[in-house]
């Protein structure tokens, strides 16, 4: 017992001294990711963030590791077990906010970065990565409103938390903007931006829920559905695949699902991309160069942190005029002519 205590103390001291040392050489730099309960292969933000680490492995020659959380009780434990073993710990998701903050405060020499969360006031050793997702969602809402035949769009979320509802807000706003421009009455089912209420599966892992919620929205008349719930959306895609893409189209979130879900790529109208890989890469790069500082990294249309995915197979189905309008709106959002969000 006594000996293991000593060994442990020694190990901790050693680890701390390494950390406080100089910018590490590339091969010694280790970036670690802690996922939320969705897992590393969620076709969504955990996976996209991991892609950022992998890109850094390829381009910067660092080492990368990840730890999957199976339950909420794992968050703290998972972060703790990486302490001292990684130069940068990247936690993924709003739900890890509390655990990351506690760990960062207890270990001021450890660098952290959290995807989808920002602290106010900022912590000196945490770089929060947040995304103006509503900008891209606005474009998706406009596109969907232009493409719907039934006049109804559907949206549902995982949990009623800001990183989810921001998609729903932007989508809603985009559709409304279309109505205003064209005098149409396209409805968005599943989210009421005023009351902050809507459809939520209350989880980020049940594909069955994704299928059932999409089915409900389809039954209510929606022919384009935006599931904002990580892998839950794959269930919705499966339904669209069975019904046929002329009856139901899906808009992907986080990654370009046309690429990450190749088996059902034809059901995706487009995807609202959060380029977490880009921001993760950016943070890793800054940590290696020694320019890392706590605060907020915002991904927006202007810096490519968020964007609408290419239309791929839908390219020919979308009228050229609509494409032109989208390009204009995109520019207007970037230069501030159109204000997205409140």
């Amino acid at each position, binding site marked *: 017992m006594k000996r293991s205590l000593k060994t442990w*103390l020694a190990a901790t001291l050693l680890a701390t001294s390494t950390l406080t040392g100089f910018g590490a050489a590339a091969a010694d730099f280790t970036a670690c990711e802690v996922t939320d309960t969705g897992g590393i292969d969620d076709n969504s933000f955990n996976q996209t963030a991991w892609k950022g680490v992998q890109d850094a492995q390829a381009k910067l020659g660092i080492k990368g590791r990840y730890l999957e959380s199976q339950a909420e*009780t794992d968050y703290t434990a*998972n972060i*703790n077990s990486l302490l001292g073993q990684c130069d940068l710990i990247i936690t993924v998701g709003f739900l890890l906010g509390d655990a990351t903050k506690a*760990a960062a405060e207890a270990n001021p020499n450890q660098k952290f970065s959290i995807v989808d969360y920002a602290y106010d006031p900022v912590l000196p050793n945490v770089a929060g990565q947040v995304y103006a997702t509503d900008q891209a969602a606005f474009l998706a809402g406009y596109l969907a409103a232009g493409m719907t035949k039934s006049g109804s769009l559907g949206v549902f979320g995982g949990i009623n938390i800001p990183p989810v509802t921001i998609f729903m807000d932007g989508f809603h706003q985009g559709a409304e903007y279309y109505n205003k421009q064209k005098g149409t009455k396209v409805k968005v089912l599943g989210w009421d931006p005023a009351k902050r209420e809507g459809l939520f599966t209350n989880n980020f892992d049940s594909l069955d829920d994704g299928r059932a919620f999409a089915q409900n929205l389809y039954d209510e008349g929606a022919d384009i559905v935006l599931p904002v719930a990580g892998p839950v959306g794959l269930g919705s895609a499966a339904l669209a695949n069975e019904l046929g893409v002329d009856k139901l189209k899906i808009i992907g979130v986080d990654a370009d699902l046309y690429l990450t879900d190749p088996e059902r790529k034809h059901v995706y109208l487009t995807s609202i991309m959060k380029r977490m890989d880009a921001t993760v890469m950016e943070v890793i790069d800054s940590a290696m160069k020694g320019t890392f500082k706590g605060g907020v990294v915002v991904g927006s249309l202007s810096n490519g942190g968020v964007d609408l995915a290419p239309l791929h197979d839908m390219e020919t189905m979308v009228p050229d005029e609509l494409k032109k309008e989208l390009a204009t709106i995109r520019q207007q959002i970037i230069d501030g002519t159109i204000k997205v969000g409140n």
Partner: protein
Amino acid sequence: MSEQGETATLTARLLERAAPKRADFEDLVIVPVFAVVVALILGGVAMLATNVDLETIGRSYVALAYGSIGSINALSETITAATPLILAGLGVALGFRAGLFNIGAEGQILMGGMAAVVVGFSFTGLPMLVHLPLALLAGIVAGALYAAIAGWIRAATGAHEVILTIMLNMISYRLVDYMLRMPAIQRPGRSDPISSSVLPTAELPRLLEWLGPNLRLHSGVFLMLAAVLFVYWLLFRSTIGFEFRASGESPEAARFAGMRSGLIIVLVMALGGAFAGLAGANQVLGVLGRASSGFSAGIGFDALAVALLGRSHPFGVVIAGLLFGALEAGGRQMQVDAGVSIDLIGIIQSLIILFIAAPLVVRALFPWGFRKGAPASKE
């Protein structure tokens, strides 16, 4: 005179305890040990089947051992993970002893945890000496009451407790989601289901913070040890425990002996729920500091396995709970060091349970561990 002497000798002889039989030793020690060994071996085979090379497998198991018992931090994590499993496992074991299959520990943990959180953040200005016990008590009472619902319906109508507790689990999930959105409970400024934070006066103090800021071991471990001793006393040294065990072994014989089966059912369920509720309170006051949907994290279901593996004996439950806690803590290290999927730990856990539940398989696999000729009943 001589006849009296004879009776006295006979009485004395009857009071002698037989030495523990080899069969008992085989059942209690050899079977579980082999079950763990076989599960680890088959876990390795499963890794091989998924194209993991031998060196990585070796590294995984070294990491498993290191991450569970290899350092102070590992021990702290193992015990932290084991504490709620043992508490809830005791509750389930009590039910097993009384012949009740209480699947509802998960829901009881949720209700107990919710009550503890609400008390934990609602009362400001209380000294810790009052606040913490109050929050713990709230958890215990809430768990007990929630479980007693199933007990009462079972006793009154004969509806099966398995169905009842499963349904109550379902209800508890939604109830917790609902409560976490109530303005009085939801954390100000948040729209997702998460409660306000437990005040420091209601937190279970951490024990090893002086050694390192990340050592999570907290004083819930003392509650757990006290609970183990209490359950031991209750089961084997009290009249209530006698009634529980009698009802469990033979409800009819217990009824014929004048025991009130309905009352016993309600009492067993309530007590089991009290321990699950304490497990929930232990989690929110000692580990999480708040409640969010799904904070029970499946502990209530793992507790079933822990109770089963521990043969429904309080000391067995401790050992089984520590084993599961070690697998959880070590599994994390396995992931970090060897990059092996955390799902493997689930496979190993399931295999252990499987082999414990089917001792004949273990006997067949390791014939040299057991005396020849399986002990069978006479006639």
